[in-house]
């Protein structure tokens, strides 16, 4: 019964977005001088427990703007100066919308952000209403780009892209013949598990069992025993560390020899804590390349360290590239008007620090790479990077 309401809401939103675009266009057209200052917003958690990652994104964007300004970007005969406007969303969905409004009011041309999917999604409505392009460096929830907004992009692989990649990894690298699949009955876990299952099935792998648990359960003895009776050589789990940790332990207790493979919900230090010794040999993926393996990685890491005196945490290269996506689109559009650059962003095709950047029709990164990690000596270690098109790096 909710469906018609949702449709209606989208229709209203779309109308607002169009109105917003028109308004923006008018305002941008009036500004003219020899050097045009173009404001780029950055929204990420700059305080709180995730502030180190938020700061990382902000620094990446600052470095991007600096490099572009140094290169002397000229658009429509005018020299362009990028200015970064960084706002703290505290990783809080409510604060994220406030910050988004603030950036819109400050007339930014584009926004790099937010860090959390939970912040990116509510904020995306405000950017869409104002017709301002948003590029998230890190939000992986598929929903972010599935809301029907033309303004949402990301420079990181989404959760739906991980399943097929993990499937190909299982077939090509692990030579899996008989696979058992478990999911936690959540949107994330089930989506991941089903995408994985479809891929390995297509490659002729035998699915010996597909079991279900919940995201609250900690007892998996029954389903694991069932799986044990079917002798799989690989167990795939779609879900997060709070389940896969105890699951890994119970697999060991039941004497299941098969390796455990999962997605980014499992690739956490907490998984190793919860699984104890049983974590050894477990594999899980996270979107993106390991930072030292990115095409522009080494040079970028050195430049970043020299400028800020700290090492790159995780998403600074994505923040850096996002600023370049804006600059690149402006060049092709010959304008700094969000209305004009928006269609050009969709046509982006260039090599960034993180590798080739191009978007599909929804704004997701085409061939976003995914890196599989393995637990070795009580620590996650990068094992192999796979891209969705199948070519390994």
């Amino acid at each position, binding site marked *: 019964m909710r469906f018609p309401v949702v449709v209606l809401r989208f229709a209203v939103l779309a109308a607002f977005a169009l109105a917003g675009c028109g308004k923006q266009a008018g305002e941008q057209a009036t500004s003219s001088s020899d050097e045009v200052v173009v404001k780029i917003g950055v929204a990420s958690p700059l305080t709180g427990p995730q502030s180190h990652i938020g700061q990382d994104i902000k620094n990446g964007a600052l470095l991007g703007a600096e490099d572009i300004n140094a290169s002397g970007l000229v658009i429509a005969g005018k020299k362009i100066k990028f200015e970064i406007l960084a706002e703290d969303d505290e990783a809080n969905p409510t604060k994220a919308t406030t910050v988004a409004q603030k950036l819109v009011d400050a007339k930014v041309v584009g926004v790099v952000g937010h860090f959390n999917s939970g912040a990116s999604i509510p904020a995306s409505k405000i950017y869409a209403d104002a017709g301002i392009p948003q590029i998230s460096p890190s939000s992986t929830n598929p929903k972010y780009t599935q809301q029907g907004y033309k303004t949402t992009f990301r420079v990181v692989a989404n959760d739906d892209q991980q399943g097929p990649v993990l499937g190909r990894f299982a077939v090509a690298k692990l030579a899996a013949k008989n696979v058992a699949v478990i999911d936690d009955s959540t949107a994330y876990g089930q989506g991941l598990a089903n995408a994985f299952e479809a891929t390995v099935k297509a490659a002729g792998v035998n699915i010996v069992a597909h079991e279900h648990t919940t995201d609250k359960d900690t007892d998996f*003895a029954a389903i694991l025993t069932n799986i044990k009776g079917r002798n799989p050589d690989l167990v795939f789990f779609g879900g997060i560390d709070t389940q896969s940790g105890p699951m890994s332990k119970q697999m060991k207790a039941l004497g299941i020899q098969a390796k455990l493979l999962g997605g980014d919900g499992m690739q956490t230090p907490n998984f190793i804590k919860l699984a104890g010794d049983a974590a050894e040999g477990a594999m899980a993926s996270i979107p993106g390349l390991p930072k030292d393996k990115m095409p522009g990685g080494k040079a970028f890491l050195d430049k970043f360290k020299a400028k800020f005196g700290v090492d790159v945490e995780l998403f600074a290269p994505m923040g850096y590239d996002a600023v370049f996506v804006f600059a690149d689109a402006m060049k092709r559009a010959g304008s700094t008007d969000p209305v004009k650059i928006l269609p050009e962003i969709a046509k982006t095709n260039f090599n960034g620090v993180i590798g080739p950047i191009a978007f599909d029709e929804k704004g997701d990164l085409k061939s976003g790479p995914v890196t599989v990690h393995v637990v070795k000596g009580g620590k996650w270690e990068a094992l192999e990077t796979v891209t969705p098109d199948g070519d390994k790096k």
Partner: protein
Amino acid sequence: MEILLQQIVNGVVLGAVYALVALGYTMVYGILGLINFAHGEVVMVGALTALTAINLLVGSGLPGPVILLIGILAAAPVCLAVGYLMERIAYRPLRNAPRLAPLITAIGVSIILQYLAVLIWGRSYHAYPELLPTAPFDLFGARITPTQILILVLATLTMVGLLLLVHKTRLGRAMRATAENPGIARLMGVDTDRIVSITFMLGSVLGALAGVMVSVNYSIAHYQMGFILGLKAFTAAVLGGIGNLGGAMVGGILLGLIEALGSGYIGDLTGGVFGSNYRDVFAFFVLILVLIFRPSGLLGEKLADRA
């Protein structure tokens, strides 16, 4: 065959976990006729308190089982205090109120305890250190870990201990008298307030024990762990006949077996129409059947057996 045996072992162990928690429910219900929905949260408080103590001691060089025992001994008084305060503040003023009032209060207490736990221990899932040997024993091809054996032994001992307490001691006689008719018991010189307090504290200490054992078994503890566990244990208690100590044990083991065998074999039996995600549906379906044919549970809730 080995798989079937393993599923039975899984079921019995899971059932013992439920039984350990269900005994606490049944104790309180037997005396007061009150379903203390906050009991699951007492279990959670016990698990997290013990974890704090255990984390202080891990690395001190003490052997694992000793640390575990200290953890339980640290959690017991905390849960005892929680049980006492809960009864004193939330339930005693409502002793003569309509039955719905204390029920709603119990749900309120459970929410309060959950968020107190968030304030103290945070929302994250805590890893429980491995304190007992993990090498499993082989039982005709099925595997059982030392922790699981300990849970079985503790659940049995607890049940037997409570039965002895209720039927063979002076305190037990007072409990049975209070259960049968609090008014008359008072006339006979039984301090019923004290008996009710003691019952709550005893139930809560059992909750502490259950919490620690559950967390050791699954090596995880968090502020929401009491909810599902409490719900399942309550189901087990009703299945066996709530208020009946033997019933809690029987109900727990039965529920565990239904869940293990159910999720292990539903898929095959129905040709894949139902999967392991229907495990709870299966368990509650059996509960409904039992309640239709034996409304007071498998073993019934005879007044003399209550406590």
